[in-house]
């Protein structure tokens, strides 16, 4: 049996007893954890009257449906789609939905701040400009690629070309900035850009 929220195998089969109604829920391990965490936080909130905790707690149906309609500027996923699938659409979602994700992430991990390993490009060579570790400038390329598809749909090939150049510039800028930070310099500088237009 498949998980109801993704296509992994369902490992948890939960029976929910709601007033006069029995509901079967089949979830994979990850989704079961999210689900159970939410259920627990909902229960706690109901008992303690606190509005913190899981997503949806203390929010009216109206607020929830408004929230569900939030859209990622880059990949176009709605918060509703994310809640249904349990998978985010792109790295930018963590920025766009930061406020909405925070209680959910706090529930899953009991923390809201990364403290582990960071990309080494955070530590630049002596004298070099520090590179931002966050990758937002590159993530914006996702939106541009979507815009290209839309331009082509409208047969606006000029616009598509302009956008393609823009993507290339951003990727080149990243590579130019990243390369001095590399421990070993590449044998052939400027090999495969990785963007096959």
């Amino acid at each position, binding site marked *: 049996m498949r998980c109801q929220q*993704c296509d*992994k*195998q*369902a*490992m*948890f*089969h939960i029976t929910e007893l709601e007033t006069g109604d029995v509901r079967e829920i089949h979830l994979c*391990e*990850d989704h079961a*954890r*999210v689900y159970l965490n939410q259920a627990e936080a909902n229960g706690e909130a109901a008992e303690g009257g606190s509005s913190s905790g899981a997503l949806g707690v203390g929010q009216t149906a109206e607020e929830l449906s408004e929230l569900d309609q939030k859209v990622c500027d*880059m*990949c176009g*996923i709605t918060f509703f789609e994310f809640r249904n*699938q349990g*998978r*985010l*659409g*792109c*790295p930018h979602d*963590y*920025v766009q939905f930061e406020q909405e*994700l925070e209680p*959910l*992430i706090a529930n*899953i*991990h*009991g*923390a*809201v*701040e*990364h*403290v*582990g*390993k*960071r*990309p*080494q*490009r955070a530590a630049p060579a002596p004298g070099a400009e520090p590179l931002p*570790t*966050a*990758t937002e400038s*590159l*993530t914006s*390329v*996702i939106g541009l*690629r979507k815009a290209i*598809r839309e331009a082509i749909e409208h047969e606006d090939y000029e616009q598509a070309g302009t956008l393609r150049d823009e993507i290339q510039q951003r*990727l080149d800028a*990243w590579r130019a900035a*990243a390369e001095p930070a*590399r*421990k*070993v310099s*590449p044998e052939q500088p400027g*090999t*495969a850009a*990785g*963007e*096959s237009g």
Partner: protein
Amino acid sequence: MKLDALTTSNGEWLRGTGPEADIVMSSRVRLARNLAQYPFVGRATEQERTEVEQFLHSRLTQVPVGGKLEYLDLGELEELDRQFLVERQLISREHAEAVGARAVAIDAQEQVSLMINEEDHLRIQCMHSGLDLHAVWDQVSAVDDEIESVVPYAFHDRWGYLTACPTNVGTGIRVSVMLHLPALVITRQIDKVFRSLHKISLAVRGLYGEGSQAFGDFYQISNQTTLGRTEQDLISQVADVVPVLIDYERRARDFLLQETEQNVHDQVSRAYGILRTAQTISAEETMQLLSRVRMGVLLGLIDDIDVAGINQLLVRTQPAHLQKLRGVELETKDRNIERARYLRQYFESKAADVN
């Protein structure tokens, strides 16, 4: 192709060497990573998935990741070969069954496996035989550094490494050890152990089958959270509990020997008897019986075969391995007959060796 060479080797996770190998089958760490410039796999277009695969393929050949990598395009492989890689624990079941551009790169030792376009763009896995988590971490982290020097990982100052599922965000790390705990199962202490592990937020799952129903008494312990603690911390969380579990299992084995030796000797001998004489046998039953025999060998109740041999059988009697060894695709029914024949031949040749 390289897959055929793998058929006759044993794979890392059942090599049966390394510290505490009588109980700890393997230690594994995997890191979830994504490219900043593409949507996550589940939302990427076919074109984007193909680009991700090509981009990572070209980059992975630029970095010296533990020697030469064998790069396998999963879409081009037969289903049997993908299943084989799953049994080998070099790719996940989901990765095998998915559609679209996806691949895996494996090092010659079968310790490192780089899964491309699984749930995340890249999953870096490293696995050693026995209890060896800290060495595994050093290796997987070094591979991660190498790749990071040529690949723009999606990273956020606050959230860390960004993953398709929020359950993996932050470190993106999953630390797991595979344990063989037959005595805890027989003495019915296993559920109690699991409950205590859940309390310290560690996950337990059986090697095969659904839920906590594990065939062959093999269990995997892993961390559940990935954010807010360092990788070292999360590794210690798992590593610290393993000696305790080893101790429990050893005590349970001692108990079985001291208090119920006749009983346990009987169980083990019967299991051994079935494996040597069965005419048809499923993969599940084989694993169950091999588990008992493995324990019998470790308890000194069986002395004409060794643990290495049992480990080898645990791999080779799995469906895809069996079919590849025999060089034919077989239906379940024929597989069960072939499996029984394989087992009988193995034990007969062992007996001939001894004489």
